[in-house]
């Protein structure tokens, strides 16, 4: 079993034993892909939102690829750091990744990013980005601007 699998199995055990209000974790059998459903305590976000996590063999030394995934009653939330294709501009997922983060800690960060938001808007460059973006958000070079939202 790879290092990534071992670590993700431990994470799965942890999230089953600890309370994460408003967050539900659905790992796949391989453990290398998880879906995470978020409920947000903010009137801007009345729906359930689904995050898709993909971990490579280098996880947790390498960051996971994380984005919102649209589905039945699972819209992509409106947020100045969330593109309409589901990609998220968040330093934690790129330059500021460290291996002490986990599926759970990233989920909590994104949940609180939505919880604190006051403007239901797309990023200013959404139309252009969503048209040309690579499929894997990790291949995008985000500029992390405006930490106030």
């Amino acid at each position: 079993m790879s290092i990534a699998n071992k670590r993700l199995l431990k994470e799965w055990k942890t999230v089953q034993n600890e309370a994460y209000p408003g967050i539900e974790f659905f790992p796949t059998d391989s453990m290398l892909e998880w879906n995470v459903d978020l409920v947000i305590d903010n009137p801007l976000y009345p729906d359930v939102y689904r995050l898709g996590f993909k971990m490579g063999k280098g996880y947790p030394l390498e960051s996971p690829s994380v984005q919102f995934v649209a589905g039945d009653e699972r819209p992509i939330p409106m947020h100045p750091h969330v593109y309409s294709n589901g990609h998220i501009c968040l330093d934690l997922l790129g330059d500021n990744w460290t291996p002490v983060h986990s599926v759970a800690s990233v989920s909590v960060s994104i949940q609180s990013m939505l919880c604190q938001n006051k403007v239901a808007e797309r990023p200013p460059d959404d139309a252009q980005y969503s048209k040309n973006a690579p499929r894997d958000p990790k291949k995008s070079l985000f500029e992390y601007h405006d930490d106030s939202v």
Partner: protein
Amino acid sequence: MKVTIKQWHQVSTWHWKLPADDDLCGICRVSFDGTCPSCKYPGDDCPLVIGDCNHNFHMHCVLKWLETETSKGTCPMCRQVFRMKGGDVLSADNTNQSEINNVSQGSDAVMDALD
């Protein structure tokens, strides 16, 4: 009653004595008294390092992290430059002799064999 001991078994346990009382390596989430995911035998074969920032890791785990580009040589916990306590900066450049010396000094200081 007089007892003559003919034979006895000594049993001892050990654990790493760390300045902070966290017990899992933040990188692999395995207990410090266990091994990093690449090792089989705990103890001196899979030593720990203590950072100047007082964050601890399995040495093999933190070395792998420091080799990555994203690490920029920083501690995964606090993002300060990772330096071993009382030692040099732990980097891919001095992984060989100097680090082995440092680690053995470090392990003398932190090993606490209990009987």
